[in-house]
Each structure stands twice: as structure tokens, then as C-alpha cells.
């Protein structure tokens, strides 16, 4: 009789170390998208030419895309089940978004400029911060908050056993829909404010702004992932997430301000400020300065580092109640 479990080696830790059992025929459990595809792919692997990387990449991409669509649907249903929580989350999200605007308006109430940024530019920086934080919180931060809990209770085991990249699942398992309202609020505020102060921008400025917001988000995600990975060793340090929220707050300030700090602190904080200040500089000044190169290099580099660090940390994960 064919055995139900087939032994295999874990892929998520980078190096094959652990031998676990995998269900031979995933369809017997359910028809979830990752099980179906993964089972099929393993059987096909031996027949495919090894150099067919592009096809494999497209297959993997479409597989993860379908999985992400399921996650989006699941998260939306999850939020809609608890409607009071959903409405409360929207109120809180909009409240904090509006607070950022009120905060900068009050702080610059008697100030004309700071660190070479005019009052209007500082307000646009704060509004862009609202948009970027909305995006970050929609995709990632809720999952990072959850990470310490699932590590502490041993629930990370369940994610590691799934035939999907562990970092993908850990980072995107829940999508925080109320934060889309914050993004919307930020976009409306941006257009209204630009209309009030009569500022017009070039097409290049807008395109650069949108493009470098993407790099900024990658950088912020990588930083969050990097710091949250420490939870594998210190699962009780749950308020590291609150600390990250605070450090993120540095992104509301001009990057020139942080450059006044000593190099040790600068290294720690500058990436956060670069992530928001650089796209805004492109928008309001239309200038492509050296910060853009820094942002691109740091975001790609930090993404790679956070990935390697996660894989390294998983080798030290000692399962439930570690």
C-alpha cells in the first residue's frame, strides 16, 4: 500500500537539514491552491530541462499570485465577519492619519522652514508619510505584529510546514483593509493641499514620486522584516513592533535633519527617513539627487539582507514555545 507520508527536506531554511513527512497526494486534504500546484510541480521537476528558469519563474509567480488573491479574499472576509472591529479599525486608522496632518500643521504653525524644507514641503512630506504608512500597514505591519504571537505559541510550525515560501506567508498572511482608507485619505489630502497652495508639478516629478514610493516601501518592509526576525530568538519582545512604529515616525522628518546625528545613529535611522523624503523631494523639487541612488541601493541591499537573515534565523527556530 502506498504510504500517506513521503519524507522530504525542508527548503525554507536555505540548506536542507530537517527531514519531515509530506502528504503524498495533497488533494486528499483539500483543494487549496498551493497544495495542488506544489504537488504537481514536484512531480514535473525531474522531467523539465534544468535551464528552463524563465518558465519556472513564471509558473512560480503565477502560483504565488493566485495564492495572494486567495489571501486577499480571506482577509476581506475575515474583516467583514467582525464588523464592529472593522469599523473601529477604520476610525483608528483615519484618526492617526489625520493626526499626522494636524501634527505637522501645529509644529510648523510658527515656522517658515527647517533644514532647507519650506513649511509647504514639510506638510507634503507628512501627507506622503500618511500614504506610505497606509500601504505598509495594509500589506505587512499587521503580519509583523502577529509574528511574535505565532512564534511564542508555536504556530509558526504550521506556516513552515506549508509548501510555500515561509517569508511570503509570514509577511502577507493577513491584509489590513482599513489601511486602504488611510491611503485614500492621504491621496485626497495631497491633492487638496496642492490645490490650496497652488503648486503644480511636472509629469516626471509625479512618475518619479510613484516609482520611488515603491522603493521606499521595499526598504521599509525589509527593515521591518529584519528587526522582526529577532523575535525568533526573543519571542516575548512583542513591543519591538511598537518600537518600529516609532522609528517609522522618523520618516516624517527631512532626511537632512538626520544627517546631523552621529554616524552610529545615522546608520540606524537614515534608511527610514530616506524611504519617504526621497520620493517627496522628487515630487516637490523635481530634482534627482544622490539620495535616489542611496535609496535604490539600500532598498535592494536591505531586501537581500532581510531575506538571508530570515533564512538564517529559521535554522535557530526551535519550534513550539521556543
Amino acid at each position: 500500500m502506498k504510504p500517506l507520508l513521503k519524507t522530504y527536506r525542508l527548503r525554507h531554511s536555505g540548506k536542507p537539514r530537517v527531514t519531515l513527512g509530506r502528504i503524498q497526494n495533497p488533494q486528499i486534504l483539500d483543494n487549496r491552491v498551493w497544495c495542488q500546484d506544489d504537488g504537481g510541480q514536484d512531480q514535473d521537476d525531474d522531467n523539465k530541462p534544468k535551464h528552463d528558469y524563465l518558465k519556472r519563474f513564471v509558473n512560480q509567480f503565477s502560483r504565488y499570485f493566485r495564492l495572494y488573491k486567495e489571501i486577499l479574499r480571506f482577509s476581506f472576509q475575515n474583516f467583514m465577519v467582525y464588523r464592529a472591529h472593522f469599523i473601529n479599525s477604520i476610525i483608528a486608522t483615519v484618526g492617526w492619519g489625520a493626526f499626522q496632518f494636524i501634527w505637522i500643521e501645529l509644529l510648523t504653525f510658527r515656522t517658515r522652514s527647517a533644514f532647507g524644507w519650506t513649511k509647504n514641503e514639510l506638510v507634503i512630506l507628512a501627507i506622503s508619510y500618511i500614504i506610505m504608512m497606509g500601504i505598509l500597514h495594509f500589506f505587512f505591519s499587521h503580519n509583523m505584529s502577529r509574528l511574535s504571537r505565532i512564534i511564542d505559541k508555536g504556530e509558526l510550525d504550521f506556516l513552515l510546514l506549508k509548501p510555500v515560501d515561509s517569508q511570503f506567508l509570514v509577511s502577507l498572511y493577513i491584509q489590513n483593509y482599513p489601511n486602504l482608507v488611510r491611503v485614500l485619505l492621504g491621496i485626497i489630502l495631497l491633492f487638496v493641499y496642492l490645490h490650496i497652495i497652488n503648486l503644480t508639478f511636472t509629469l516626471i516629478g509625479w512618475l518619479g514620486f510613484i516609482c520611488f514610493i515603491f522603493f521606499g516601501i521595499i526598504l521599509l518592509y525589509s527593515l521591518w522584516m529584519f528587526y522582526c526576525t529577532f523575535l525568533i530568538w526573543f519571542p516575548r519582545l512583542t513591543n519591538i513592533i511598537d518600537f518600529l512604529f516609532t522609528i517609522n515616525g522618523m520618516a516624517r522628518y527631512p532626511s537632512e535633519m538626520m544627517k546631523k546625528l552621529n554616524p552610529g545613529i545615522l546608520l540606524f535611522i537614515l534608511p527610514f527617513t530616506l524611504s519617504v523624503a526621497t520620493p517627496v523631494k522628487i515630487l516637490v523639487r523635481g530634482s534627482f539627487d544622490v539620495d535616489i541612488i542611496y535609496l535604490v541601493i539600500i532598498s535592494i541591499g536591505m531586501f537581500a539582507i532581510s531575506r538571508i537573515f530570515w533564512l538564517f534565523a529559521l535554522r535557530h527556530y526551535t519550534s513550539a514555545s521556543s
Partner: protein
Amino acid sequence: MRLFRIVLLHFQHVFENRLRSLVWFLIPLMNNLTVILFWSGAIKNTNSNASWNMSTIATYYFLLTIMGAMLNSHIEEDVAVFDIQQGDLVRYLTRPFPYYWIKFIEEIPYRILQGSYGILLVIAFSFFYKNYITISNNPIILLLSSLIMILAFFLTFTLKMNLGLSAFWFTDSRGFFELITIVLIIFSGGIMPLYLLPHGMQTISSILPFAYTAYFPILSLQGVFSYAQLIRIIGIQCLWLAVFLIINRIMWKQGIKQFTSFGQ
């Protein structure tokens, strides 16, 4: 003696997770240090009165950090989520202590630990930058300021308790808590001193109780107020505290009738 032992037990619990408390302290500290840094670049381009200079800015935000750590209670989520929604209130109801005072005893060690982090920080900072931190050296003002700080703690604690007790009626109050926190930050001088705000906001803040939880304790420690003004502040704090306590009693008496718990 029995009460003292209970307090010591809670101290043990708090010290067990002292690194967590340190992180909670570092969060507002980082925020306030960043604001000081911002003002260092903005002050020369600011139309403000002469009293707002780097020395008063540093003193204000350092004291704000200490006041936030020492006086700002965060009991609302504990009361709302763990005690009322998850049913932990049952174990408090069977104890021979009023719920308000048990929670007060639970909260005190957190405030003392985080407040001591703040005091250590200010001592260290004053050692290196002697002229930046200016606190009154008049013993009567210090005594009255201490009383204002104690009342400020009672004010925030009772306010947050009342917020937590609202969970008797609402299934989810997180949005409401967050909104109150935002209003509290703005009108307690959490962004900048209230005298630098627009006049309309100054008027609103004088009506609300929030300024008496952080702004007035800070300014009283700096020696800005006369004795008469300090006594007036104490009087208003007592008035607000009485209002909050009455609300607390009403909410507790009505709310406990709504509470249901299960178990064997």
C-alpha cells in the same frame, strides 16, 4: 503589611519584564528627541516668543518624556479586553478589594519603573549638558509640583479606567480609545507647549482636562507659575478628578449588571 506584599508581588511581575518596560520608555523618548532635533533646525526660522529657545525646548520635551512614562496610565486596554471581554474580571470580583484599587496597585509598579528610567536619563543628560535642563529649585514649588503630578496620575488613571469600563456596553472600543489618545496628545501639550498653539486651540485646551495631565505638571516643575496659580491648578485637578470618579462609580455600578461570565 498584606497590602505591601501585594504591591511587591506586582513589582516582581513588572521587573520580570523590565526590557519590555524599557522599550515602552524608549518609544516616547525617541519621539521627543526627534522633535528636539527638529526644533534645533527650525528655531531660527520661527516667529515665537523669546521664552521658546533651545534650553526651554530641551527641558520641555525631556520632562514630557518623564511625565508620559511616570504619569500616563495605559490601563484601558487591560480593563476592556482582558478583564471585561475575556472575563478576567471574575477573579477580581472575588477578592476583598475594590476593583479600582486593585488595578491602581497593578499600575503603580509600571509607572515607578518607567519614571525611574526617565529620571536616570535626565540626570545623565544634565551631567553632560548642564545648562539645557532647567528645573525650579524652590522647595515649595517642588512640593506643590509633586502634588500636581500625583493628581495628574490619578486623573489619567481614572480617565483610562472609565474608558476601559466602556467595554461593558461596547463589543469593540479600540477606535474610540485611539481617538481619545489622539485628542489627549494634542491637548495635553504632547506636540508642543499649549501657549504656542493657535488661540482657538488654546481656548479649547483650557476647557478640557487633558492639559492637567502633562502640560501643567511640566510647567509647574519649570517654575513658571506663582504659588496662587499652582494652587488654582491643584483645585481644577481636584474638580476634574471628582467628576471622573463620579463617572467611574456610575459606570461600575451600571456596567457590572451587564457583565456575564462562564466557567466551572
